[in-house]
């Protein structure tokens, strides 16, 4: 199924929660409202003509321009990207969820996105990694702990404004 058809299916089912279909890029994507992502994922996973059995990749990016010389700075936000694949129907789909960099604009309060760990088993680990490195709180996640960094690590390294710690347990950082 083409991404345009998937988009139409989703719009007829979820209406306004499906924000946008972005075409004219190398990998077209569908933008989904953050509150609807768990339901949309469940729908894509179970419908007989969609059947996305696999979550190939889940990752996040922090959109914050740190280069002051840049002429067209991006709108600051954090986005989570889902790459889905259907083994039985051999089609792919890319979803995006965009949220503000901090919840309610308070620096340090992580933005919240519903977890998809109950839809795909691998969602568990991928979301833990996104939480660990980019700093997104996945609500309803069964076990949202850091996965690559130590549990007492501070901050989320893939944030663009992350500052490397000067010291960690007596080890100098710089």
């Amino acid at each position, binding site marked *: 199924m083409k991404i345009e058809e998937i988009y139409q299916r989703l719009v007829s089912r979820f209406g306004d929660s499906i924000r946008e279909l972005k075409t004219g890029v190398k990998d077209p994507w569908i933008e989904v409202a953050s509150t609807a992502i768990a339901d949309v994922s469940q729908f894509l996973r179970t419908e007989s003509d969609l059947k996305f059995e696999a979550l*190939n*990749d889940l990752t996040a*990016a922090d959109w914050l321009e740190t280069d002051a010389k840049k002429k067209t700075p991006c709108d600051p936000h954090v986005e989570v990207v889902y790459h889905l694949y259907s083994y039985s129907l051999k089609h792919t789909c890319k979803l995006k969820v965009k949220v503000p960099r901090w919840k309610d604009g308070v620096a340090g309060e992580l933005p919240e996105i519903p977890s998809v760990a109950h839809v*795909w*088993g691998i969602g568990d680990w991928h979301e833990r990694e996104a939480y660990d490195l980019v700093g997104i709180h996945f609500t309803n996640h069964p076990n949202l702990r850091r996965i690559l960094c130590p549990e007492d690590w501070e901050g989320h390294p893939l944030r663009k404004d992350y500052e490397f710690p000067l010291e960690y347990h007596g080890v100098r950082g710089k």
Partner: protein
Amino acid sequence: MSLTLEDPRIVEFDVRTDEMLVNMGPQHPSTHGVLRLLLRTDGEIVHEVTPHIGYLHRCAEKIGENLSPPQWIPYTDRMDYLAAMNMNLGFSLAVEKLIGMEVPEKAMTLRVIIGELNRIASHLVGMGAYGLDLGTFSPFLYAFREREIILDLLEEVCGARLTYSYITIGGTTHDLPDQITIPPGLAQLTERNPNLQLSWINALRMFLDWMGPRIKEYHTLLTRNAIFVRRTAGLGILSPEMAMSYGCTGPVLRGSGVDYDLRRDGEAIYTRMYEGYNYKIPVAPFSDPAFGGIPQEVKLGDNWCRFFVRMMEVAQSIEIIRQALDRYPSSKGEYRLPFKMNQKLPADEVYLETECPKGSMGFYIVGDGDAEPFRVRAKSSCFCNLSVTGPLCQGVLIADIPSIVGSLDIVMGEIDR
């Protein structure tokens, strides 16, 4: 096969004790690197396994945001360091997809030869180390004897034995050498003059001719070995649904009976490399009675199937390389298209997966008009394959944990990045 305490065949007497937490790793030799498994055990039976990873985390993705793609290629080497060529290839293809570059035919043929050769080397380590996990030492020595020759050949091509950075954006860094001295291991095994001068292609052909019949010996030595079969068959059964849900790929997925290989089913930029090659994709269950038949205890998706898929892939890779070597002299074009170190990347984003020996390695690159990507992401196949250990190891004996983890063939460098 999930064991319960009530199962009289396995637990002859009541071994129930207090629950105990056992730390397996991160220095345990059978966890294939710095992997720490936290086992909640009751006597010999494991109730819960929690993998702890991250001991080898090197912030590769963060580093990638500050380097241009050609500068980041050496970092991809250090992900799956047993198949660094395939890591280079996956990242190079993703960048080529982003900038819309199509490499010439000659570069594609070269990439097939080198990529498949490295796949054989990786599977040989997988086989040898798996035998080692289960207590047999000899297959490991044979596997490394063969791998040594592959490393010698790759060294002749690019100068490095492990971290090659050979496949690069636009093609490869060098063409194949015209004349080399025969690798010492190959000269010894084929009883040839150690000073023999020959072309790299002929040396590889000589190696493949010698390697082909060896696979049968591995099957005699390991695959059909009664102890090996008892320790692997019917154990760690991974259903196809679970494999797909947990994002398992590569031999782990095919061992569960899902017929999927990116070399055939992937995106066009990758599959066109493999167009016109005649090869089979081994998928469980195996009905082919080659090599003396399949042991009866084997069940779909068990450790033995995952191991056997790898062994069958070695034979197929040899076939692919032979065909690529025939094709190489008449391949058109250059071995490399120019790509500047500070070439600007378009403001777009791509995700591309390639079939690496361990599974589907994906690279996600976001460009923003600068030479350095805004975000690079390496989706590790071993990361996904390892995530299934928790559910897979419930209710097994402690001694079976290395058997299950080993069958997933993980490399920590790729998991932790």
